[in-house]
């Protein structure tokens, strides 16, 4: 892929729930193989933005999306197979949602639904995903146990493994480290650094340190508007171009 063409191009995107607009015409690009951080206070539209990307927003009644999102140049509203679109995007929610299946079946769920059923192909895939999510060593002897019986942090890593299971080109992590201890968080961050060679990552986080450590560029989203989007060195420096960014990053946001 040519590095100059954006992986995701968002053009004048607005989103309204009922009559209330929560995202007000934002425009930005995500470059291939970068890690884009999205920071911003609660209710600033971060999660809603992610849900627009994989069109799970379609299932929320009474929403209206205007503007355009292109992935690899293709308008996502025009794609014929929305399920294939969703498989190109891995999504990790802030609170872990283990499906009521075994650990193995949780990870094998999406590949199976996509038509991969041979155990010989599934086994290595499941192992690779669990390794990437830094969970393999803890669960390799009990893959048949119920996924929902894992601890909160383990379940979160299970959802990361699951999000990688359909070999996405884009991975969206929505505050993935809420339920995970710092050591494991670091291990997953290492994994993310490794993964970026193959995929593009969008990382929503409220931990500004995490964004600083991990991201190439960071977007500061506030009340459904992009306040600033720049290289992370700039955003987290003493002189971002906007005063609000400096105040938010330093925790003195009014």
């Amino acid at each position, binding site marked *: 892929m040519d590095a100059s063409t954006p992986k995701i191009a968002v053009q004048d995107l607005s989103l309204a729930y009922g009559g209330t607009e929560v995202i007000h015409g934002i425009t930005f690009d995500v470059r291939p193989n970068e890690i884009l951080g999205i920071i911003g206070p609660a209710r600033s539209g971060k999660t809603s933005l992610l849900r627009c990307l*994989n069109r799970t927003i379609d*299932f929320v009644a009474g929403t209206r999306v205007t503007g355009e999102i292109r992935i690899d140049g293709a308008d996502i509203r025009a794609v014929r197979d929305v399920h294939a679109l969703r498989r190109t995007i891995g999504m990790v929610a802030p609170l872990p*949602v283990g499906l009521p*299946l075994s650990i193995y079946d949780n990870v094998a769920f999406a590949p199976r639904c*996509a038509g991969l059923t041979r155990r010989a192909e599934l086994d290595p895939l499941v192992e690779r995903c669990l390794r990437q999510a830094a969970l393999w060593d803890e669960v390799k002897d009990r893959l048949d146990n119920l996924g929902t019986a894992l601890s909160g942090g383990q379940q979160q890593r299970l959802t990361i493994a*699951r*999000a990688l299971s*359909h070999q996405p080109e884009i991975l969206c992590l929505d505050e993935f480290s809420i339920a995970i201890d710092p050591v494991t968080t670091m291990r997953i961050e290492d994994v993310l650094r490794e993964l970026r060679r193959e995929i593009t990552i969008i990382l929503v986080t409220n931990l500004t340190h995490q964004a600083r450590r991990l991201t190439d560029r960071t977007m500061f989203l506030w009340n459904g508007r992009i306040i600033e989007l720049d290289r992370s060195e700039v955003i987290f420096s003493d002189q971002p171009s906007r005063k609000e960014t400096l105040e938010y990053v330093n925790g003195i946001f009014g």
Partner: protein
Amino acid sequence: MASTSSTGAAVPPRPTRPRRAVWGERGIELLIYASGVSAIVFILAILFFIFREAAPVLFSDRFSLTQFLFSTEWYPTSVSNVRYGTLALSAGTLAVTVLAMILAVPFGVGGAVFLSQFCGPRLRETLKIIIELLAAIPSVVWGFIGLTVMSRLIVTYTGAPVGVNVLNGGIILALMSVPIIVSIGEDALKAVPDSYVEAALALGVTRWQLVFRVLLPAARHGLLAAVLLGVGRAIGETMAVLMATGHAVQIPHGILDSVRTLTANIAAELGEAPAGSEHYQVLFLTGVLLFAITMLVNLAADLIIRGARARK
């Protein structure tokens, strides 16, 4: 706070609950306990009173339990040779119930899935009202439909000599069970956490994969309960099957044979049997048998659910 000490810095005493509140809470606990236990008491009382009416015949030499359970000959009022065999009646109940469930379970579960996943909110509300209306139709009305409408249709389309038979009773019972299965099943499907649905959809599954791989497995206990309530209604139903199945004591050889069920038999004969007579007592024993069958069905379902849980 009411009790502040004179020195401002002192910690105020921990507030204690008034005695009245403590006793009140204990009273409520007792009440809840009593209402929980009352279910057991009622079941035992019902069993006791049915059994008390039936018991004397068990010890009479003119009666044999083996004959009662395994003979097909039911001649309770014969002058020369009285026989009380309920096998044909049990077979009738079984045949009608099984047929009803074969018809009702796919439609009921399918209806529940449709309501919860595939239809808009307005259509859903309308359908739910109609389905609940369907559940409220008295059984005698169903029986009347079986006797007149359905029976004529069956004679016309199958060429059976009589239209009141297993098929007729099965269809009527299915029609009565479907609304129950749909409304309870829909509740069970609605109880599946939205987060499961969202997680699965984000993984790119189709609607059907969502239904078969996430919703149905996650709601299986509730769905089984819905089916069981349907079975319960089918086994226990009396008036409709009395009118729709033809009332012939025989083991059916096909779905176009007329049968008589345990319940219909009790309803039809209890009024004729003099209170306290042998016939009367045997009819009560039939009630005990019915009770036992229902218990067995429930127990089996319970074990299935537990088995499913233990395997996980």
